[in-house]
């Protein structure tokens, strides 16, 4: 099984990575002195005194972006096999893939036209509000 042996490399990397992580953390926890103070336990913000909690409410646009990203991520999943086989399968498979891309391009155009690809939406900027 040559294929599996190639993945053995990944496994070795994984194991070594986990080992280093566990090893160094355990080692440092064994040798380090334990002296806590309020300042030490506060989050590190480049030397500034932290203001407020780091758990703030995210902007909803992160969510919209992530959602659209997933859709196009799934599109990529389908296009990888297409890239592998479309030459062997001929015209029909090629056109199939193009239709797939075209339908999702409609989705992209829709999102774009609705102004969701811009961080500051045009209607909020005020200049292009009359669409």
């Amino acid at each position, binding site marked *: 099984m040559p294929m599996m042996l190639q993945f053995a490399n*990944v496994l070795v990397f994984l194991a070594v990575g986990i080992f280093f992580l566990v090893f160094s953390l355990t080692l440092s926890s064994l040798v380090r002195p334990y002296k806590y103070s309020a300042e030490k336990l506060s989050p590190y913000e480049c030397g500034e005194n932290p203001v407020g909690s780091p758990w*703030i409410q*995210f902007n909803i646009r992160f969510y919209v972006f992530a959602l659209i990203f997933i859709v196009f991520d799934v599109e990529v999943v389908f296009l990888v*096999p*297409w890239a592998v*086989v*479309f030459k062997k399968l001929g015209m029909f498979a090629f056109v199939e893939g193009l*239709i*797939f891309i075209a339908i999702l391009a409609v*989705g992209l155009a829709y999102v774009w036209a609705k102004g969701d690809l811009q961080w500051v939406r045009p209607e909020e900027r005020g200049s292009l509000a009359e669409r």
Partner: protein
Amino acid sequence: MEIAVFLFLSGIAIVAAANILVQRHPIYSALSLIVTFVALAGIYIQMHAEFIAVMQIVVYTGAIMVLFIFVIMLLNAGAEQKVPDKVHVVKYFGLPLASLLIFEAGLTASRTFDGEGIPVESASINLSGNTEMIGRALYTQYALPFEVTSVLLLVAIVGAIVMAKKEL
């Protein structure tokens, strides 16, 4: 060797999955879920489903978990508060019943499913690349479902925008 790797990966998957439930803060649960997904990807590789394994990481850990974490941040969900259980029935009967069900399912499975499933010929999978086989199936036999998927994704995009936007 293969058994050892499988036990290692499935052990990680189960421990991480249990950790999802134990953790009180949703962010930690989400991070644990990522570990589970990566371990599952390893198991997929063992099953010769290399393409699925890579997609597991690209789609699940790469995109869906990002969305999860964004949503947790969006909802600003802090550590889970302990709410006293109002329904005691759940408390006292839930776990015993669940374990009984799992035990029963395991018993049934071990007794009756022996040799019921039909093995996939793994020889043919090794012949050509896994991705190529998926591509061939997807673009010939499953051509129509493939195109329907694009319509499905389009509807999902529209849904995301309609649901999340303030003003259409």
